[in-house]
């Protein structure tokens, strides 16, 4: 049986949206898929050595559950107050640890161990004046055509 292929495009740089690419990438690899993740725009944040800067924000996120169902009555403007983002980020991290959810760093390491390949979009790295030295090891810098080389015959392609 020919090895199946999964191509993922990761575009978001938040604590919550950092999970899907690494969860699905590592799981697919465990199931025997050949996996590539193309990180572009804000998704590049997921490649930085230290991921402590990633946040989750309640602002503009009406689906985010809050303690005591606060999200049902809390005015949107309150979610924009200074400190709200830091508070929600800290609560999310605590909740994840309590529920046995892996850290992003751990899932990223497991992905790399399982030979998931990470590609950083060269154009957005330059656009944001990012230094490839800020990234973890084992990242390939490339463009859209390189992504299609793999995605073109992938069985599954996901945009996140």
């Amino acid at each position, binding site marked *: 049986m020919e090895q199946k292929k999964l191509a993922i495009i990761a575009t978001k740089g938040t604590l919550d949206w950092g999970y899907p690419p690494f969860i699905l990438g590592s799981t697919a690899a465990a199931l025997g898929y050949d996996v590539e993740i193309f990180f572009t725009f804000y998704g590049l944040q997921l490649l930085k050595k230290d991921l402590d800067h990633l946040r989750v924000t309640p602002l503009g996120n009406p689906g985010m559950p809050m303690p005591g169902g606060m999200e049902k009555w809390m005015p949107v403007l309150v979610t924009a107050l200074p400190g709200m983002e830091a508070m929600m980020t800290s609560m999310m991290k605590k909740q994840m640890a309590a529920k*046995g959810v892996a850290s992003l760093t751990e899932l990223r390491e497991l992905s790399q161990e399982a030979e998931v390949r990470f590609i950083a979009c060269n154009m957005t790295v330059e656009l944001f004046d990012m230094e490839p030295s800020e990234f973890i090891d084992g990242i390939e810098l490339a463009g859209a055509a390189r992504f299609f080389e793999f995605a073109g015959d992938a069985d599954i392609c996901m945009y996140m």
Partner: protein
Amino acid sequence: MADFDDELDASGLNCPLPILRAKKALAALDSGKVLHIIATDPGSVKDFEAFSKQTGNELMESKEEGGKFHFLIKKA
């Protein structure tokens, strides 16, 4: 529960960690050897069925006992 060659306690771990840890543990075993996995994540029941189907490693047993889930997987 039948005999097994190695054991993995994935209690307290959530998706996808039990599967990822099991994959690693199986990689260290020879073909035909059996891995016993203990998990507390209810989602792991369906996940190990799917893992077995897709990887060809046979799920010999799957049961709940004392609030924990037990799986026996034979390395293909």
